[in-house]
């Protein structure tokens, strides 16, 4: 018997106590845990909660309005002293309008990993963000690029729109497509391996900055353009 059939046969033998007609759904799974909606504790406003939780884990967060994004992106990159940043395809042009063109690299053609290692940083969007846990989720969609782009450079600036924020982990998973490679990022890389003390900054970007676009309610009742 080949290994596959052998292992499967062993599994079936081991489960001799399971009735033949039992189906997986016959084993009840009680999903009374809160599947979303109410984040457990903290500020009621998702933008505030996300900001608080991200900050808690060593990211810096700045709320901006739609009008301020371009300037905030350029300012963050300058303040960082990044000589160049990679901006993936699909990143909204209006958000990078204030970046000096000579500082911007695209990933087309693909940048060799050695170059990514020397680059000043990366600027991206997100797929979704989870307020309760302070998590950004990237799915390699527009404005996010392939995974290496947000991994090898030492600085990551991420732009989140308020409506991309969900309260909880279950809501986020429901929005995501598992066929795409996903990366959940909660603060900059960290380790607790030395005496279980948290130290921020090991292999991933050691500096994570987040701009959250949140516009004040429009008195006319229609959403402001972003």
């Amino acid at each position, binding site marked *: 018997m080949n290994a596959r059939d052998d292992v499967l046969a062993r599994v079936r033998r081991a489960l001799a106590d399971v009735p033949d007609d039992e189906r997986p759904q016959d084993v009840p799974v009680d999903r009374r845990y809160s599947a979303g909606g109410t984040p457990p504790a903290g500020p009621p406003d998702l933008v505030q909660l996300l900001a608080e939780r991200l900050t808690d884990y060593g990211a810096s967060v700045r709320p901006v309005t739609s009008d301020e994004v371009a300037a905030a992106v350029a300012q963050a990159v300058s303040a960082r002293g990044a000589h160049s940043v990679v901006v993936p395809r699909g990143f909204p042009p209006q958000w990078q309008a204030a970046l000096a063109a000579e500082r911007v690299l695209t990933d087309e053609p693909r940048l060799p990993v050695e170059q990514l290692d020397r680059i000043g940083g990366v600027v991206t969007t997100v797929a979704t963000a989870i307020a309760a846990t302070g998590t950004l989720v990237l799915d390699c969609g527009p404005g996010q690029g392939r995974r290496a782009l947000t991994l090898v450079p030492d600085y990551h600036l991420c732009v989140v729109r308020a409506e991309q924020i969900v309260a909880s*982990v279950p809501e986020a998973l429901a929005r995501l497509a598992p066929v795409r490679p996903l990366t959940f990022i909660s603060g900059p890389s960290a380790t607790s391996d030395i005496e279980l003390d948290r130290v921020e900054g090991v292999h991933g970007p050691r500096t994570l900055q987040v701009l959250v676009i949140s516009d004040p309610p429009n008195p006319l009742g229609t959403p402001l353009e972003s």
Partner: protein
Amino acid sequence: MNDTTFLGMPAFPSAAKSALDNAQLRRNLAHATDTIRGKRAHAVGELDDWEELREAGRAIKERTLRHLDRYLIQVEERVTAAGGHVHWARDAEEARRIVIDLVQATGEREVVKVKSMATQEIGLNEALADAGISAYETDLAELIVQLGQDHPSHILVPAIHRNRAEIRDIFVRAMGDYGTAAPAGLSDDPHALAEAARRHLREKFLRAKVAVSGANFLVAETGTAVVVESEGNGRMCLTLPDTLISVVGIEKVVPTWRDLEVFLQLLPRSSTGERMNPYTSTWTGTAADDGPSTFHLVLLDAGRTDTLADPIGRQALNCIRCSACLNVCPVYERAGGHAYGSVYPGPIGAILTPQLRGTTSAVDRSLPYASTLCGACYEVCPVKINIPEVLVHLRARVVDDSRRRRIPTPEKLAMSAARWVLSHPSRLAAVQRAGSAAGRLAGRRGRISRLPGPLSAWTETRDAPAPPTETFRAWWRRNR
């Protein structure tokens, strides 16, 4: 399977005795577990649906295990459809052979590794070395263990027994032998140590062509693998190389994508005491233009089906390797991880190792006794493994087996196992308080609060081996 027992490992009681004599180790361990217990309690306390999440986690695992054959077939189908290759390994030997062949087929002589219990369990690094392939561990704690030519002593933090000064010394002494040396004048500041690890490993990540990983979860419905980590070394290994080989125990399967919503809440809060760990990666087969172009999944049995065959012992396969049970265990805190003689220390090791490896060696026969049955492990376990129940059950199995094979029964071991902890009741009480506060005693309050908890639990063990000549209550009064 005994080939992967730590070499020359004595049975638990004598190994634990020597660990107890090592004051530095005990201080390191006590400090670390104390820190992490507090963090976990805080992170768990934030969620008012924690008990519901635990119950869902347990139930999902039960559903999975009772129908494991169909989920494994589904994993195989989905991973294959997504461009991956699936291999099956009956035992450690077969798994090692598969991985070595796959690496050799790439023509490479080195691999980078993400921390993985499964590959440690099968002794992969040693086998790769014998085949002329260098395997570089990239998790900081694993790196410390590897450079220090040491054994892991904790599931989450394998170098938990080392303090910062010892780590500095190891880096200074050994980094240069494997690549970029430690910077001159390296201090023992954790930031400086992390920076040294970053520099040491970066060149390896950038040139690596092959990575070996495990996975925390494997979603049957979609064929998606999940790695939960902190440092970014996992992302490096999962993203930069051309070939990725993941060795995953067959019990890591979960049925649906949605099921992850439970485990991605349970695991980080139980493990590092964080709301969410810094990085979680998921991948489904291979993706065009992103990450490895070749993905191999090695599904590992290695004693798991033997474990599955025991309807009571089976629940040990629920384990998501969070290590919360280690951090609250009074025996673990005093004995240290090495005493358990396997890559799975602490309460989970005491019930998993004897089932995976069988109870033929002295160390494995003694493991079910490496506990006071105080119940703290059960209280904190995010998937509700009733570790005391399985311990008692395994003790009976060991005793039956010993009688049948006419070898000494292990009552003596039982006495010594409890003695280390019970000789310091204040410490035990402290550990129990921490475990209880964090674990929310709802539903089990009656049992745990019957004082003295551990002792009544001990004397209640109907299935346990013949009681020692004096009861623990009497022994306790005499020795306190």
